[in-house]
């Protein structure tokens, strides 16, 4: 089986409009969560979120693309352009014919749906925009990214709630490793910060009114964000032959299901996914220096995730670092694993561990080194990225320094 490396990364997220800006914000422990403003947002009981500010889609998309791109697809396209530019790949001939794209998203074109429903239900109109369907479909982002680069290989979308982008990137990894494609663009995109998107979440009563504080004893729920990140997953020999810079090697992936509860996470399921990723990579738990946690700042997730880490890593759990960058960029739902992979690349490539911001009070149920509030310089060789979705679907990636 082939080896798989990441040769390009791009992102639009609440912390920044590029990988460099995102890393700078993570290193500063900057929090992008604040008051949310969009149509009808005054009718929400949840008033905070991490919105992408100052994004001008016309700066990133062609006029033809703009007509078909919901906000989530705009984020994906802009991110993919950055990633491919960094990788320095020119997709032509056989490479274009065999390469593809897989983008995770939980909600797809939610803003498009929201606007169309508002028009017909609230405003009594009898007509919606003719491109409503191509804009709202979950695969719109994958299709637009593929069209931008002429990718004719395996291309699709993955939707598994908060694990969507980890599933997408895991599948891309498996396809490149198996030889099904020499290059896959993979990541996630989400734009759920619209009235309907947040109103639906309010009902579950798991959102915080005042901030995202993962692992802190005074945490009181998640805060949503929006954005995208896209990566170039490339077969190692292909990358080496063209002298490409390698940001990290993807060494393992595991996915599984709790098969137990729609919303309550399971220690067993989370532990199996982490252990599975290590086993897939052929690595011992002791090799891991950093875990980018799912860390939603709900009571249930953080307690369960920490127990799962103890179960998998035993005494090594006290030596590794684990942080949740959701404390800074919010929970990007279907895009969250992709943006969080940036923290993994920063750990491996820059030797800087992103902090868990907003941390205030130790919680005995989360007694791990959560890198509270300040980034830390540290050399790590192997990292994990966790995603545990509603519906009990778990997906964990393992990455290593090249």
């Amino acid at each position, binding site marked *: 089986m082939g080896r798989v490396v990441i040769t390009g990364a791009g992102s639009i997220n609440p912390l920044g409009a590029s990988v460099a800006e995102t890393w700078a914000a993570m290193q500063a422990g900057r929090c992008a969560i604040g008051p949310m403003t969009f149509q009808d947002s005054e009718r929400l009981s949840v008033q905070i979120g991490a919105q992408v500010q100052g994004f001008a889609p016309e700066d990133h998309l062609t006029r033809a693309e703009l007509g078909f791109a919901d906000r989530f697809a705009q984020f994906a396209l802009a991110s993919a352009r950055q990633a491919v530019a960094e990788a320095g790949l020119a997709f032509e001939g056989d490479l274009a014919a065999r390469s593809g794209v897989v983008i995770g998203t939980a909600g797809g074109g939610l803003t498009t749906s929201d606007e169309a429903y508002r028009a017909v239900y609230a405003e009594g109109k009898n007509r919606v925009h003719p491109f409503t369907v191509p804009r709202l479909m979950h695969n719109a982002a994958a299709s637009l990214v593929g069209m931008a680069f002429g990718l004719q290989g395996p291309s699709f979308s993955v939707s598994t709630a908060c694990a969507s982008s980890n599933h997408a990137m895991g599948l891309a990894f498996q396809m490149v490793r198996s030889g099904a494609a020499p290059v896959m663009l993979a990541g996630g995109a989400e734009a759920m910060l619209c009235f309907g998107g947040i109103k639906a979440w309010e*009902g579950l*009563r798991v*959102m*915080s009114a005042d901030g995202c504080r993962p692992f802190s004893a005074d945490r*009181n*729920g998640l805060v949503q964000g929006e954005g995208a990140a896209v990566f170039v997953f490339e077969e190692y020999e292909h990358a080496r032959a063209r002298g490409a810079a390698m940001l990290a090697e993807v060494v393992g992936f595991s996915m599984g299901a709790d098969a137990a509860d729609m*919303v309550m996470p399971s220690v067993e399921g989370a532990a199996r996914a982490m252990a599975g990723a290590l086993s897939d990579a052929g690595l011992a738990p002791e090799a891991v220096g950093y875990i980018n946690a799912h860390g939603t700042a709900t*009571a249930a997730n953080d307690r369960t995730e920490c127990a799962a880490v103890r179960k998998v890593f035993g005494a090594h759990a006290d030596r590794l670092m684990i942080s949740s960058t959701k404390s800074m960029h919010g929970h990007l739902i279907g895009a969250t694993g992709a943006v969080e992979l940036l923290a993994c690349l920063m750990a491996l490539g820059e030797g800087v561990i992103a902090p868990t911001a907003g941390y205030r009070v130790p919680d005995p149920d989360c007694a791990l080194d959560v890198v509270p509030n300040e980034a830390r310089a540290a050399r790590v060789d192997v990292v994990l990225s966790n995603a545990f979705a509603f519906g009990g679907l778990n997906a964990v990636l393992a990455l290593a320094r090249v």
Partner: protein
Amino acid sequence: MASAVADEIIAIIARQAMLDPSEVRLDMTLDELGFDSLVLVEALFAIEEKFDVSVPYNANEPDEADFDISSVGAVIAGVEALVAAKA
């Protein structure tokens, strides 16, 4: 005598707990009724819809003082206060 609000709330709780309303006592805790967090969230939704109130309850902080869910009676008292505040 139980108020009309109390009867409605007991009916909602009984339906969620799959019990007959006569089996629901005011001193019962939600644990005793077999409520998990999702059942509670559904019951609160039904209460909010019935009385057109907003119940301040965050599943991450079940013990916070905003809304007392320690017993059926406490829930009834809390909703009665919300209904009274609305009038």
